[in-house]
């Protein structure tokens, strides 16, 4: 009994006890989050608390770029204008050709009685900041649940696929980039029509095609676009370009590295695509494999 402090110095549990309590709480949260994904509501609440700070912290940089925009030189504008006019002309030709092809395509599709391809709605968003987490590749964008963004939506920029919304908060959402380790995108080789799954490596600017047989036809420079069989990404969005192919007969699979086409680390303007029209239910008797681990040979 002589070790109990007098009431004057009583300060509650000792520091070690408190450490244990809070460490246990953190571990419980970690497990609940990593294993079971239980904490959506708690995340939403904390997300609302931290939101003003997130916006406030992004303000100086945004203001800086706005000021820089204001002082853009006449020459830059002229060069930009020239480039855009040239590009516009090019695109106009392409668009005309595309319109004709589209008409022809719808006609053929109706002849074949296939489901008409529906345009996916989309809306623009701005990247606020890249998350500081060195273990993952994520960015925050300035649109959230309020605008109808839900986890799972694909995010693209003017060139190709950037990533996928993984968490949505009321006014922000978190986009996992395609370079994040474990982020998968079902793709199609434009040249050969070979379907594969592109996975991020956690390394900026490097993607991998895994489990590709040695005999598969992949060459450096091949363009990969989304295959659309996952029900998430619309078909035909450019994703990556093959940069390295190594076929070593000592291994079962070829070693194929790619680089993302979109400005995964640099872009600030992105487009979040809306939900795709409902896919037909998979037949009941076959086990519905949602995981996009398909290794179909074409």
């Amino acid at each position: 009994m002589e070790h109990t402090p007098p009431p004057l110095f009583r300060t509650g549990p000792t520091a070690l006890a408190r450490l244990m309590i809070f460490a246990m709480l953190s571990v419980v949260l970690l497990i609940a989050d990593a294993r079971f994904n239980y904490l959506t509501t708690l995340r939403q609440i904390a997300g609302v608390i931290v939101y003003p700070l997130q916006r406030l912290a992004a303000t100086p940089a945004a203001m800086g770029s706005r000021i820089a925009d204001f002082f853009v030189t006449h020459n830059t504008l002229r060069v930009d204008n020239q480039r855009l006019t040239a590009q516009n002309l090019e695109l106009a030709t392409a668009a005309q050709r595309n319109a004709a092809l589209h008409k022809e395509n719808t006609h053929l599709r109706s002849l074949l009685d296939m489901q008409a391809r529906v345009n996916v709605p989309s809306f623009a968003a701005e990247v606020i900041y890249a998350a500081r987490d060195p273990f993952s590749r994520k960015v925050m964008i300035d649109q959230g649940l309020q605008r109808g963004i839900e986890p799972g939506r694909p995010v693209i920029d003017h060139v190709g696929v950037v990533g996928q919304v993984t968490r949505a908060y009321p006014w922000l959402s978190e986009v996992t980039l395609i370079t994040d380790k474990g982020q998968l995108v079902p793709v199609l080789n434009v040249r050969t029509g070979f379907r594969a799954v592109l996975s991020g490596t956690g390394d900026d600017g490097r993607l991998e095609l895994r489990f590709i047989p040695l005999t598969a036809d992949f060459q450096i420079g091949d363009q990969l676009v989304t295959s659309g069989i996952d029900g998430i990404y619309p078909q035909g969005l450019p994703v990556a370009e093959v940069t390295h192919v190594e076929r070593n007969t000592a291994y079962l699979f070829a070693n194929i590295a790619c680089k993302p086409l979109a400005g995964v680390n640099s872009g600030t303007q992105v487009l979040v695509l809306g939900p795709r029209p409902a896919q037909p239910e998979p037949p009941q008797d076959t086990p519905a494999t949602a995981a996009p681990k398909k290794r179909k040979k074409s």
Partner: protein
Amino acid sequence: MATRPMSPQVLLLPVKPGFIAITLIAALLANLLPWSGWALWLVPDFVALTVLYWCIMEPRKIGFLTAWSLGLLMDIADGSLFGQHALAYTILAYAGIALNRRVQRFSMTAQVLHVIPLLLFTSLIVLLVRALAGADFPGYAYFLGNFTGAALWPALAYLLKLPQRPRPDPDRV
């Protein structure tokens, strides 16, 4: 080292809890600034630094609950695992509170030497948690931020002590 001369110490004013709160919010803001590229590796975790500072200097005014909740907010902002920063900051707060009497007595250089291992240990715990959750080792650059953080410690200590310095007494000659 020979006998260290006792440097004259200024009696500091008591710190206001409001000031602690403001510094912590400012640290959170600094963490949320849109860093990119190499700066992302070099930039220290300001919240960890500030929490450690207050735990060492004013262990009675800041508690585990503060450190833990700040950790949760950082987890949201970073999109990392929920509880990862909370665990790290809790352990850091404990280290600060346990070592506060010791570290306070040391000179600035020695304090920095105390801070480096504490910050390194915290990042090691985060690394361990993420490794258990299946992440890869991000490379040794991951630890760089701790050293810049420790290098900033003297500046931080100076800044955070400013409002505690007593005003010069106009009546004294």
